[in-house]
């Protein structure tokens, strides 16, 4: 019996290369066409919203798991502590009401813009669900938001800017977003400095070694109003280079907030 050995030609692209390539091109064209249209982004945001909310709920529940395994005596102690805190809070509320009244009165006298001009938005998702130093909000251009609008955690606490938007949803880039740059000044000395986002909730800058700055200094940003943008955490002196490395953090813990306020750019 004679066997003949046949060599199969190994084509680099294979037999079905063109078929595969056409499918590949069709998908690519489809993606590019939909990328141009704005409504596609709105649609995607709408579709993903329930999943983002599910994830947010999941992470909130996850943070409560350690409490399930807490010791009973510890819980009794915690309960006592909480009762005391409730009493303190009750007294604080009474104080707050009187301060609020005084604040409103002063606002009227000084003609300071009322609080009502801010747009309140709920946070649907935050890191680790979405990329670090970003927030996913439940308001979009339909609600009057614009790219670049300032995002505040309190009335004068600036945490970031609107970076990406669809009809009903918006993505916020926090001041600590990698490579984000903002310009502010030290509240204590009024000396200007550049604030660079370092990623992971970190803000940093480099200043001359004789620059007057200490840990705990507040960094303000002046826009239509003055906002608190960062708090100095660590100051490292580098004698060899003649610079100080300043490490800052956002004024609030973003993981603990669920509502933000957006100040439209057009407002004065």
């Amino acid at each position, binding site marked *: 019996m004679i066997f003949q050995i046949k060599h199969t030609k*190994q*084509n*680099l*692209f*294979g*037999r079905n*290369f063109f078929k*595969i*390539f056409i*499918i*590949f091109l069709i*998908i*690519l064209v*489809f*993606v590019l066409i*939909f*990328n141009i249209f704005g409504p*596609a*982004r709105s649609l*995607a*945001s709408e579709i*993903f919203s329930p*999943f*983002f909310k*599910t*994830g947010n709920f*999941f992470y909130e529940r996850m943070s409560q798991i350690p409490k399930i395994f807490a010791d009973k005596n510890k819980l009794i102690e915690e309960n006592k502590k909480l009762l005391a805190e409730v009493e303190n809070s009750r007294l604080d509320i009474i104080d707050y009401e009187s301060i609020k009244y005084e604040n409103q009165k002063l606002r009227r006298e000084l003609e300071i813009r009322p609080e009502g001009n801010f747009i309140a938005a709920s946070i649907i998702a935050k890191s*680790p*669900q*979405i*990329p670090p130093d*970003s927030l*996913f909000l439940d308001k979009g251009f339909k609600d009057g938001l614009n790219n670049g609008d300032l995002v505040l955690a309190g009335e004068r606490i600036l945490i970031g800017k609107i*970076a*990406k938007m669809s009809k009903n*949803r918006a*993505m916020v*880039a926090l001041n600590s*977003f*990698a*490579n984000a740059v903002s310009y502010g000044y030290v509240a204590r000395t009024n000396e200007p400095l550049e604030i660079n986002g370092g990623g992971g909730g970190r803000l940093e800058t480099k200043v001359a070694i004789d620059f007057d700055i200490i840990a705990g200094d507040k960094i303000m940003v002046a826009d239509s109003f003055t906002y608190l943008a960062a708090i100095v955490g660590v100051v490292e002196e580098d004698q060899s280079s003649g610079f100080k490395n300043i490490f800052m953090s956002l004024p609030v813990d973003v993981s603990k907030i669920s509502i933000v306020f957006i100040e439209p750019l057009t407002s004065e």
Partner: protein
Amino acid sequence: MYRTLYFLAIIIFPVIFSWWLFIPMALFFVYLAKLPYEIILAGFLLDMVYYFGDGFLARHLLIVFSLLLIILALFLNSRIHWRKVI
């Protein structure tokens, strides 16, 4: 059937749990299925909601990753013995 389910999972799981899950899931998809073009669509959809920064690469980070992965798989298609699990 499993391929479709995995495609849905690759879109939904990163949204619910964490964005970076897309990367290992896409790599695993290439291992499980032969030339999974679906990852381009998944990358495209996720790129529309996530924000990685400005600039072309940052705006299309996941889709670029998917495209590179598929192009690599396309060239290796005839060179390696492909496990077609799903």
